[in-house]
């Protein structure tokens, strides 16, 4: 998808003088180009060699711009045929860059009914750190306004059921609000994260205002350009009391597949994992700069001296469950896992209204969750393109199976997709996924379930628990 911007920018001296005119011109040209491109694609398809199309008839044609064996092996084992993006394809596993282009005004094109892609057009509403927080805050306010019991607050003004994201501010936009909050508890630690980056890049911890002076809007010494969204940061209250196991900090990586946002239908992969830091945790201020203590991203940890390539510092979620049940008891462990499921569903509900629920799309998210020492889970972020790199042999098997199960749900029977299908796969194809939330099913069950099924209260008799032997979680929330 080459950008036509370069060509368009130079046209017409009139455009250079009047920005509004220039914009209108750009829109007109873009529309024309889009129509032309769609025609082009159709023409190409029609002109293709008939013998080739006969051979490939009935087989799913795939494209990807992510060269990972866990993907490609899965396509090939289904007998799918690899094509290029300029050809007639049915399934495109794209990077987030590509999805931006496909749905962009200038370079985009319409997808046909037999084409499926692995991202929602505006997934960033959930996967950008600042937008996720914004949407959750908006969602909470809306619930509060309509008097929903979910938005209930405690005597300190904290949400009882919806307080699952650490206090966060956008910088530099909310700088002053942040300073106010910071001064309330000056000994607190905060974590600075660039909005648009991944893998732990650019993250650092601060405990003094002077460390983030350059994000101050009023700062005269600021050479920081605030408009550029690439440089935008979020600053969140750092969870300095994480639950430690073996003295080490860890976080949870859970995979969640969303096939549609309205109605919301999402699945949780049973085989999530914990990522441990290789170095013992210490909240000591002298170690705030030591990323091996604080950041669990494998991309960071694997450069540590003690990184082990056999287990990769990872534990299965089942191990975590066994450990917690054995050392803390069954009730609190079940409550923890229920809460984790709850916060994932709430985060999806929060963005559902603003999501472009394009029927050609599905998405597999990587949720990062941290548990604190009071066994409360916190949503740290959601990744649109969870890493498909394998750091250990077990990892490779896990990710291979993850893609396999994802494809079984997104592309039923491995046949040429029809995006108009009802997106309700039969139970047998779920593999290691289990239904996390199905809005249609939930609505069909009647309104009385809502009150009984908030976290911390026992689920009704039908409510089972995920455990080692894989009992399915039946969620009954609305």
């Amino acid at each position, binding site marked *: 998808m080459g950008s036509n911007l370069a060509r368009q920018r130079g046209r017409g001296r009139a455009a250079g003088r009047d920005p509004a005119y220039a914009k209108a011109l750009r829109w007109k040209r873009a529309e024309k180009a889009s129509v032309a491109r769609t025609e082009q694609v159709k023409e190409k398809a029609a002109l293709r060699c008939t013998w080739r199309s006969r051979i490939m008839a009935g087989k799913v044609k795939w494209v990807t711009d992510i060269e990972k064996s866990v993907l490609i092996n899965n396509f090939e084992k289904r007998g799918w045929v690899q094509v290029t993006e300029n050809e007639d394809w049915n399934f495109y596993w794209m990077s987030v860059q590509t999805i931006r282009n496909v749905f962009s005004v200038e370079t985009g094109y319409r997808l046909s009914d037999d084409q499926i892609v692995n991202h929602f057009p505006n997934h960033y509403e959930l996967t950008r750190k600042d937008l996720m927080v914004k949407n959750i805050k908006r969602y909470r306010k809306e619930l509060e306004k309509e008097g929903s019991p979910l938005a209930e607050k405690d005597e300190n003004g904290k949400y009882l059921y919806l307080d699952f994201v650490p206090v966060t501010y956008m910088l530099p936009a909310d700088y002053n609000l942040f300073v106010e909050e910071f001064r309330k508890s000056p000994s607190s630690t905060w974590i600075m994260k660039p909005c648009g980056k991944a893998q732990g890049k650019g993250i650092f911890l601060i405990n003094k205002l002077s460390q983030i002076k350059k994000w101050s809007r009023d700062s005269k010494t600021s050479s920081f350009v605030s408009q550029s969204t690439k440089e935008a940061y979020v600053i969140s209250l750092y969870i300095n009391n994480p639950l430690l196991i073996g003295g080490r900090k860890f976080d949870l990586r859970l995979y969640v597949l969303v096939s549609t946002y309205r109605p919301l239908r999402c699945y949780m992969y049973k085989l999530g994992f914990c990522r441990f830091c290789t170095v*013992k945790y210490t909240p000591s201020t002298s170690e705030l700069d030591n990323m091996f203590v604080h950041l669990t991203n494998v991309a960071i940890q694997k450069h540590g001296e003690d990184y082990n390539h056999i287990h990769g510092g990872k534990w299965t979620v089942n191990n975590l469950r066994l450990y917690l049940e*054995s050392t803390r008891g069954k009730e609190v462990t079940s409550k923890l896992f229920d809460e984790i499921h709850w916060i994932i569903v709430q985060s999806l509900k929060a963005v559902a209204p603003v999501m472009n629920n394009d029927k050609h799309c599905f998405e597999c998210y990587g949720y990062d969750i941290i548990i604190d020492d009071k066994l409360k889970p916190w949503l740290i972020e959601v990744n649109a393109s969870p890493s498909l790199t394998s750091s250990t042999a077990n990892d490779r098997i896990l990710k291979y199976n993850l893609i396999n199960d994802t494809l079984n749900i997104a592309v039923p029977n491995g046949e040429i997709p029809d995006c108009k299908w009802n997106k309700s796969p039969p139970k047998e194809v779920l593999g290691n996924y289990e239904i996390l939330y199905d809005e249609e099913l939930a609505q069909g069950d009647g309104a009385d379930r809502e009150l009984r099924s908030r976290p911390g209260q026992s689920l009704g008799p039908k409510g089972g628990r995920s455990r080692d032997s894989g009992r399915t979680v039946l969620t009954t929330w609305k």
Partner: protein
Amino acid sequence: MLQEESDLSLVIAQIVQKLKGSSLYAQLERQAWGSWEKRILKSLNSMCTELSIPLARKRPVGEQKELLNKWNEMGTDEPDLSLFRPVYAPKDFLEVLINLRNPNYENGDSLSFRTHLGLIQVPLKVKDIPELKEFFVELGLTTGQLGIDDSTQVPPELFENEHVRIGQKVLAEQDSAAAQQYIRQGSPTALRAELWALILNISSQPEDILYYEQLKTNVIQHDLLVDSLIYKDVKLTASNDDYYFVFEDYLYQVLLCFSRDTSVLGHFAYNSASPPKSYIRGKLGLEEYAVFYPPNGVIPFHGFSMYVAPLCFLYHEPSKLYQIFREMYVRFFFRLHSISSHPSGIVSLCLLFETLLQTYLPQLFYHLREIGAQPLRISFKWMVRAFSGYLATDQLLLLWDRILGYNSLEILAVLAAAVFAFRAVNLMEVTSLAAAEAVLADLSTLKVMPLLQIFLFATVT
């Protein structure tokens, strides 16, 4: 009357038989252990000389301080261990057991033993399946089990809920004997830590915590050669294990203290082995200058740390973890690496395993023997480690529940045989020891209780 008399004479005859046998075996054991012990000590001493490291030395104050600071993260302190080797590995020990011979073999104590084609050549009495069925009656098909009847398909009302309720009652009443009986059907995960403590009679009294602290002080003040062996073992085994790597630092804390714990010497009273002795420098052979080395009399071998690792899933308080491990060791684990005729001793377990296989899976047994893959060569390492590191942790804990419940390690041999039975079809097709090892390399997906139940109660014998 007549019946009673004949019963009595039968009993007497059995006792006499036992006594006769035991002194014989005691002699045998002493001989065998004596030579094995000499070998181990020789190995230890030569390592000592080669590396010019003393068996023990007092740490300088600076080093003591450093160690104290690093007590909770000894895993990151990596001394150069490349020159250290484990004193012995399970397979070395197996060779010793294979070479055990009963000098009175020709008397034909048990005629059937002549046809025993396994590696163990000592005719100890082992149970057959009917006797095992009686012994392990609670594992039967009609009794509820955790590890089977708590799976997804079974509604909890049928067994699990009630079982948990009973478990809570047992704990509330602090009834150790009842706990032992209860745990034969498996322990709910949330109750296991307390149940094991109850059965092992461990309660964290202040004096226990003090004792542990004292041991810790010993570690800080003195450096022992075995410490390096312990480090090496942990680094080679637990640190690379998917389940246990997280607990690496706890393992050092427990094992270093363990090696200095002279109360462990007490178990040698009922262990036919004797603790290895060393002599103060320059006083070789003079009994007044003999000391037990290491102080607890136990020389760690390759894989020793795996006895402790699974316990870290249950106890995260170091002194409690330590006590539980020590008790498990002096009750059970020591039998897995010392030579004795005890039914739970490793020799009996090996013989039980081989006999079960030869009697109930003869085709498989002969086939494996033909291709040079004596089954014991593969299963020995599982039994010596009580399956730690081979099974998934939740399954291992269910297995160890039964060890505690029946106060016997025989279940290890039964499980080993059950595993072979389970994979018999694949094993019949292999043509080499390496291929057989490959078929049995990965036990992490096995469900222990169904395997045991099927082998004991559902196989036609």
